């Protein structure tokens, strides 16, 4: 008997009882669907985050006050909000392992142009900030050392902010208001998208000296810098310097300590964390897949045992007509594999459709969210589904093959 004939028989048996086949396949459908969906979402998220990190550049380093860094922005939640003083910043500038040290002061206050108001964050920082963020001017110019030295009231807008305030008109030379103070717009940034769920195209940048004067602050809300050589060395140097200046006992092991009143992170570290996250995500998905395929496989085995009993006379007949053990074994085995493969394919389509819906929704919140699929995971899920059919189909198929033709024919 040829494989093609066996597959035809199996397809006929599977399609002959559609409702039962579908219910039998449900476990496999859900398992494969979940794997395809989760790996696709994971892939999309990873590309979003990786996009952000690569936009930053792997050598970019960020420093925040408070041991939990940016997660605790409000002063009330972060008792160490003023821990990084401007003297600390001056000391950091002397480190040889980092360059482009750019302190940041966030300026609060009503912001707008004429009738148009915005709650965009106002960032007071030095020109090195642009180098660390790897961003250029799309229109006009970025602010420079001269603006810093003279403490000029000038502003550079993110492209989204520019559009919010000025629609399609050019904002260059216009005077916007930030906390009762007028600033002249000198440039608009090129779009860079979101970084860590913050829309980086929505910001207003003013010279650090100007922000310093306005906010009357002797500490920085954040500092960005860039490693000159090895990023890990640079992070170590920053930690060593700040602990010494803040009289913090350095930890015996590890990087961070509860005593720290600051947090330093490099893009490279973020990448490593992402790697860990994606490894545990993979482990989690593998677990889900395994559980659902085992559950699905038991369903397959159960229904195949029922099929063998139901079709005992058919098996007897086939044997009487000359079918060998191998022919019967293959027939039932292939039927089980056809069931699981079909279930796998339906699950695959289901997962992809759900993913398409999720992509549609996520696009509204994350510009860079793209439709991504993990081909390796898809093929692995399909192969595992087929393997489930093989493993759980072998017992019923053997039972069928071992029936004696005469007894099978007599079966009522």
């Amino acid at each position: 008997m040829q494989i093609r004939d066996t597959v035809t028989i199996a397809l006929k048996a599977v399609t002959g009882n559609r409702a039962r086949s579908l219910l039998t396949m449900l476990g496999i459908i859900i398992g494969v669907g979940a794997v395809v969906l989760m790996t696709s979402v994971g892939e999309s998220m990873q590309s979003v985050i990786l996009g952000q990190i690569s936009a930053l550049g792997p050598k970019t380093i960020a420093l925040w006050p408070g041991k939990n860094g940016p997660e605790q922005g409000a002063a009330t939640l972060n008792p160490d909000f003023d821990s990084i003083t401007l003297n600390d910043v001056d000391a950091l500038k002397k480190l040889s392992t980092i360059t482009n040290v750019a302190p940041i002061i966030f300026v609060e206050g009503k912001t707008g142009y004429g009738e148009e108001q915005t709650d965009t964050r106002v960032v007071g920082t030095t020109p090195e900030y642009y180098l660390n963020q790897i961003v250029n001017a799309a229109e006009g110019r970025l602010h420079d050392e001269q603006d810093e030295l003279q403490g000029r009231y000038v502003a550079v807008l993110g492209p989204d902010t520019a559009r919010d305030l000025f629609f399609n008109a050019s904002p260059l030379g216009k005077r916007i208001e930030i906390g009762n103070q007028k600033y002249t717009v000198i440039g608009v940034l090129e779009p860079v998208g979101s970084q860590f769920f913050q829309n980086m195209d929505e910001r207003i940048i003013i010279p650090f000296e100007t922000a310093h004067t306005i906010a009357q602050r002797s500490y920085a809300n954040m500092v960005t810098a860039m490693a000159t050589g090895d990023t890990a060395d640079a992070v170590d140097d920053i930690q060593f310097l700040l602990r010494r200046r803040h009289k913090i006992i350095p930890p015996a092991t590890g990087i961070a300590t509860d005593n720290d009143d600051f947090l330093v992170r490099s893009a490279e570290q973020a990448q490593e964390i992402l790697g860990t996250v994606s490894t545990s995500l993979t482990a989690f998905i593998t677990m889900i897949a395994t559980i659902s395929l085992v559950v699905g496989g038991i369903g397959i085995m159960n229904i195949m045992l029922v099929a063998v009993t139901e079709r005992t006379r058919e098996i007897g007949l086939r044997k009487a007509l000359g079918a060998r053990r191998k022919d019967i074994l293959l027939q039932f085995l292939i039927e089980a594999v056809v069931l699981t493969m079909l279930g796998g394919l339906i699950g695959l389509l289901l997962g992809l459709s759900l993913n398409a819906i999720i992509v549609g929704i996520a696009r509204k919140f994350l510009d860079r969210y793209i439709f991504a699929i993990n081909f390796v995971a898809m093929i692995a899920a399909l192969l595992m589904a087929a393997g489930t059919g093989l493993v759980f189909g072998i017992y019923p198929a053997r039972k069928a093959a071992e029936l004696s033709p005469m007894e099978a024919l007599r079966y009522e």
Partner: protein
Amino acid sequence: MTKKEPAPLIETKNLFKSYFNEAVETPVLFDINLRIDAGEFVAIMGPSGSGKSTLMHILGFLDVPTKGHYHFKGESTEEKTEDELARIRSSSVSFVFQSFNLLPRTSVIDNVTLPLLYHSGTKPAERREKAMKAIKAVGLTDRATYLSNQLSGGQQQRVAIARALVTEPGVIFADEPTGNLDSASGKHVMEILQSLHEEGHTIILVTHEKTTAEHAARIIRIMDGHVVADDRTFTRRIASQVKELK
């Protein structure tokens, strides 16, 4: 040198069969010695429980004897593996059952093609051609695409005969082929078997009905596992004439 006589198609010597149920032996056939030649039309007749079906199962390679010898086409069949027996079933024998045993919800042509699936090297087009020829032989050409359950009992049994013919086997075993049929359909089925015999097929019929057995040229009677009579048409005719004379 003497010319060697061709080996009989079927030859059994001191054949015994018992069934075992947890070490309890139930003997069914005792010391069966039979010789059936190619081209014969034989009826194995006996009441139910006499062992006639068991004998047919053994002769048709669906079962194996407990003791004794069975030679098929001059070849010993002892110590044949299960797969070898399957090959003999596929190439040399075929069956017509009392309950038809057609695949349900399957077309006539697919039912008739079924044995050819287990014949190695028959191409799909060739299978179809052979199946149509067999269907034509039982007069069901216009029903070829019908599903098996759309046919009457008599038609279903004719499909079963077509299925038995399609592999061009040496022997056709018919186990109570008219048992589930009304008398008209039963007569039609027996006529087909008779004409197949006239075309040269060997037919071994198992039945408990005398009228059905009468179609055969030779009747082997079985009672309680023993062969009690083996009548040829010739001796039967003489016997009935003697009876008339008395």
